[in-house]
Every structure is written in structure tokens, then in C-alpha cells.
């Protein structure tokens, strides 16, 4: 199996809205050893000017995961998941994710490059809120290791 070079430029339909729950924000914050009260204490987050708990900066990966699953599960993509290694990750924010957000994610493959026996796939996942405003763009590069 090898990666389909025609993936470049392909977009996948937006994921079903993901409702960001307070307990999920707290759980994720504990998991990444994030102790700021803004992740845990609603009053502290509101005192700082946010409507509800603020998610840690990498929380977007939870939403991005649903969009990436479409790419990885696309039979036409030719991606063998066991050979996938995470190369780069980036989050570019318009605003932080907060509890109560309903987020949808739209993934577009921006580049497919072959480097030696490996293929690097870069994809942008646009995360938008319930009114369609941009929240964060999560960019991932995945390296699909070649078969020896």
C-alpha cells in the first residue's frame, strides 16, 4: 500500500459538532499536567474575562482527531496507520477554546511529499464554532514510513 499522491488538495466534509464539556476540559488539563485555575475553576476563568473554563492550548487535538480519522480511514488515501508517525504539529488561534463551545472541524490535505521511501502528508484542520467563526487551525504533518 502506498499513499495516493492525488490526496493533495482534497477536503473532507466538516465533522459533527463537538460540544466542549467542562469536565472534559478539566480531564484534559490534568492529563497534560496543566494546573492553571482557568482550566479548572469557572469563577477564575470568568474573572479573567472568559465565558467558561479555558481549554489548554493543545486541546484542539481532540477535535482534530475526528477530522484526521476521515483522512486515515479513507480507503482511497492508501495510508497504513501502523506506519504513521507524527512529524509536526501547530495550533494557530483566533481565540482559545472554552467549555460550551460547539466545534466543527474541516480537514484539507495541503501537501503530499515523498522523501526517500517515506511520504509526508500535511493537513490543515479548520476548527470553527457554532456560528462559523474561526477558533483555531490545527496543522499536522504525518510521516508514513515506507515499506522496507
Amino acid at each position: 500500500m502506498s499513499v495516493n499522491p492525488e490526496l493533495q488538495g482534497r477536503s473532507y466534509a466538516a465533522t459533527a459538532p463537538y460540544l466542549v464539556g467542562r469536565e472534559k476540559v478539566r480531564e484534559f488539563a490534568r492529563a497534560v499536567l496543566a494546573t492553571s485555575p482557568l482550566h479548572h475553576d469557572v469563577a477564575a476563568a470568568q474573572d479573567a474575562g472568559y465565558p467558561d473554563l479555558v481549554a489548554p492550548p493543545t486541546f484542539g487535538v481532540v477535535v482534530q482527531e475526528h477530522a484526521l480519522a476521515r483522512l486515515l480511514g479513507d480507503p482511497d488515501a492508501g495510508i497504513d496507520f501502523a506506519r504513521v508517525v507524527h512529524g509536526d504539529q501547530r495550533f494557530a488561534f483566533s481565540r482559545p477554546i472554552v467549555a460550551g463551545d460547539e466545534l466543527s472541524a474541516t480537514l484539507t490535505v495541503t501537501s503530499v511529499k515523498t522523501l526517500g521511501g517515506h511520504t509526508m502528508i500535511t493537513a490543515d484542520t479548520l476548527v470553527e464554532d457554532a456560528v462559523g467563526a474561526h477558533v483555531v487551525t490545527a496543522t499536522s504533518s504525518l510521516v508514513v514510513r515506507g515499506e522496507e
Partner: protein
Amino acid sequence: MSAPLASSLALGEVVAEAEFALSRDTLVRYAGASGDFNPIHYRDDVAASVGLPGVIAHGMLTMGLAVQPVVDWLGGDAGRVLDYQVRFTRPVIVDPVDGAAVTVVAKVGRIDEAGARIDLTVTFAGETVLGKAQVVVRLDA
């Protein structure tokens, strides 16, 4: 809580340092919270079968914890993080008994009118595990 002023920073200044102790429990907790259940993060036999020297931490866990000293420096206000990127260069191997210690040093890499780029050096066992780890933050002018 308040964030530091952009005008009070110096290029190259270390603004935060931290050490994080990871154990297998940390990895299981992250797997549950993130939904990434790849067995290379909790099964030695599977890790060995794909050529790894042992169970490794999720790259996204390392990325997630590495930014925390910067968030703390920002007065706990994660909303001041405008952009955060890393490159995964080496795995963090988490020993079943001794775990793994990851250290983070955050330095000022660039200063703008109302913000800064903070460059992270993230190491495990004396080696850098994240490359080009940069956090762009909003500060008060």
C-alpha cells in the same frame, strides 16, 4: 493574575523552567483524555514489535506539557497563546519503574509591540525531543 509586560522582556531571557515526571500512569491518563489509544504508549510488547526501545510518551502529551510553564508565566491565561508549534524529533521512553523526566526551558526568541515568541528547549535524558518548539504569546505593551 497578570501577564508580564512585553517592554520588560530581554531577548534570550529565560522566562520559565520546569521538570515533569512522567510515569506509565501519566500515559494511560493522557490516552483516556485525548482518545489516542495507540498501544505503543502502554504495551511494551507492541512497542518492541515496531522497533521501539520501549513504551513511549504520546508526542502530543509532550507538546501539551511543554507549554505549561509558559502558560503559568502568562499568569495562567492560556488564552494569551496565539500560536504554538513543535516538531517531534525524538521519542520519550517511559520506563515502567523509573518513568521519565522531561525538562523544559522557555526563552524569549523575539519581542513585538504587544507580544513575544517564546522558544522552548525540551529535553529527555539529555537530548532534545522537540524541535522548533515556539509559542507566540500576547502580552501587555
